[in-house]
């Protein structure tokens, strides 16, 4: 019986680590992967989602609604940011990096001034169940499913809707898309808002597991950037999924045997090796691989 529990534990740890990386990265996948804006305020957008969900839950709004509220609020905030600031930095990656860093400082310290250094967190919904001598949190099982659903929804949006078609066209060749009648300004704004909204959702989903404090977003920035960069830009969604699975595949056994700290070290070493061998990320390598096989 314990063998089942042990095996289930390994699978559970693997999927938990992968979905943590995926949730941290999903907002950045859209903004960095598709729009190529180095968004250093990504952590603060997640923090904003977490605060929205926490405050609304404390005021009685059920948790799923609070998560949706976080999506819309942070998405609108992202649209405002894009209109006022980010649009002046398209094509200027270093400028975007500095200005988003400034935005992150303002958001972090502003939250500290408005809400104080910490806020009571919401309890983790759901209970736990046991298999053998191991017990698992049902909330993390839910998060694993939700992260898969989010990626699926994003994929569906970009491949089966008109907005997705126009968005892909704008990202590939914006001048051409504009010539064909696509309102590229609106597409940029909507895409940035979508990225911000996704960051808000993941912040809200991870809020029950974290301490709610103004600088809580910092813990997600490094995993998000590593996941997106290792994933690569050729096919951002597939790349993000692939990189989170690969990094988790390395981190989980090392973490279980040698400790969580060495697991993180192994993850970083893997990212280093992958970037060295495949500088444009996993998805670019896979795309070239499939192209060569198909003969294109």
């Amino acid at each position, binding site marked *: 019986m314990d063998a089942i529990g042990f095996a289930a534990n390994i699978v559970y740890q693997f999927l938990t680590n992968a979905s943590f990386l995926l949730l941290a990265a999903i907002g950045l996948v859209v903004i960095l992967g598709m729009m190529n804006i180095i968004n250093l305020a990504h952590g603060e957008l997640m923090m904003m989602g977490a605060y929205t969900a926490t405050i609304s839950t404390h005021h009685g709004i059920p948790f799923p609604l609070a998560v949706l509220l976080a999506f819309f609020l942070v998405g609108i905030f992202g649209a405002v940011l894009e209109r006022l600031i980010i649009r002046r930095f398209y094509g*200027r990656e270093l400028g975007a990096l500095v200005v988003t860093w400034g935005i992150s400082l303002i958001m972090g310290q502003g939250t500290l001034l408005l809400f104080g250094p910490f806020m009571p967190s919401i309890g983790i919904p759901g209970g736990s169940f046991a298999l053998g001598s191991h017990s*698992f949190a049902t909330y993390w099982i839910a998060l694993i499913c939700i992260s898969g659903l989010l990626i699926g929804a994003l994929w569906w949006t970009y491949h089966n809707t008109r907005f997705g078609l126009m968005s892909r066209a704008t990202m590939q060749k914006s001048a051409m898309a504009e010539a064909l009648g696509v309102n590229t300004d609106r597409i940029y704004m909507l895409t940035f808002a979508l990225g911000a909204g996704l960051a808000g959702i993941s912040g809200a989903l991870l809020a029950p597991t974290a301490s709610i404090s103004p600088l809580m977003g910092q813990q997600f920035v490094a995993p998000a950037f590593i996941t997106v960069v290792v994933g690569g830009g050729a096919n951002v969604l597939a790349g993000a999924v692939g990189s989170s699975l690969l990094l988790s595949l390395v981190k989980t056994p090392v973490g279980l045997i040698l400790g969580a700290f060495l697991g993180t070290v192994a993850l970083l070493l893997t990212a280093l090796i992958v970037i060295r061998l495949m500088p444009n990320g996993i998805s670019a390598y896979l795309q070239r691989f499939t192209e060569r096989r198909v003969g294109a």
Partner: protein
Amino acid sequence: MAADTSIAPADQADAGYSIERRTVLQGIGATIAAATLPAASIMTRSDRVEAAASDPVKLGFIEDFSGNLSVYGLQKLHAAQLAVKEINDGKTLKGGPVGAGGMGAEGSFAGKPPIIGITGTTLPVVNDGGSKDRKDVVFAEDEDVLVDSGEKGILGREVQMISPDGQSNNALWQQLARRLIQQDKVDVLVAGFASAEREAIRPIVDQAKQLYFYTNQYEGGVADANTFCTGPVCEQQVIPGVSYMVEKFGPRGYTIAADYNFGQLTAAWTKAFAPLVGGQIIGEEFIPLSVSEFSTVISRIQQAKPDWVMTLLVGQNQHNYYPQAAAAGLRLPMVSTVNMAQGYEHRRFKPPSLAGMHNAIQYQMEVPTNRNRAFVSRWMKMFPNDQYIGEMAQNTYFTIHLYAKAVRLAGTTDQQRVKKALEAGWTIEAPEGAVFLEPGTHHCAHYIRLAVCDENHNVSFPRSWPSIEPWWLQRLGVNLIKHPEYKQYVPDEDPYFAMFAKNAPKKS
């Protein structure tokens, strides 16, 4: 979906850089402005509690009001502000250079300890423990220990507190310590939460021979003629806590600790002392301060199957362990020297995250004595929005009062004379009980209670040790009056640790 690197039309993109004199001058000006900005923000950030009077007594106070450790720093700031206000209003705590001990008498009490909750700012007794049919020696209890000092301020001079924000950043701590000592020339420095912060500023303190109080509980071992450590140390917390856990739950323990000097040294203490009380640490894990995701840690604990877990987690990131462990169904009893009493996790996380948490501490807001209730109501009158009064806040409070009494005894604020006055064998009546500052080791004997948190996050105190001395430094032969030293001892330097590990009774 390939991303075009120049996402916007080409004319919006920057086309190379041209260096002109104007650009260079603008750049230099911007750089100078950016470099002075942090210095300006430091200088405007300090708070002045009292307006500058004629030659005030300056109390330098550095804690973290923002960042990872702010949950502790703000409590300590309020404690210092309360103490300074009471001193300036002409109040002091009972006590004097009278040696250790108190008056005892025979009395009756309930077989079970009362369970204390917190409602708003009052400490209601949720369950009074049943009929009072046990007889034992009880200590005389004062209604309140705050008395008149006979003067406003210290030696007729107002106390002025200078309290900049350390921002949980060690490099900034060093800058602030230097500034307070060299520029503001403070008469006393009360600072430090994390052991890393203390060790960052202690060399600066020693260089200037500054009188320095470290009011936090820590891993022990600081033998420094300029430093007075008024917080409890491992022999007062680890040993009572671990022996209680071994007695109640079994010998196998698992340690998870923050990965810096405090966590490593306290874990070394736990590992070395557990065999002496019949226990055994079957595994240890050290977790960096920035980690907040604990599913791997929880899984490894479940695999090891201990009887209890020793948690030495520091900082807001690491406190996420508690709700995550509860959600994952980990229901092992826990013992800690830092969690619950300092960072009030049982008030910040929903029940039953901290069910089964045991603390061997000298103070926690729920201590059910009259002098503590008086202290809590004074605090809540001054800070009505505060959520909790933690272990270290109480330490800061009585330490500042102790400093005032020592200055009155010395008759001057000259730091060398006050250090000598502090070595007079002081007992100070703190909200926790009577605290004795030992002259030779500069550490305090404390009233230690074992606090247990139940599933509703209410607290009871099933066991007390009315006075535990800080005996480790005495065993190492530290006598700072005869032989001044300026170092920190670590368990490796104590041959007894290894000796006892070999001779410990064998238990499976």
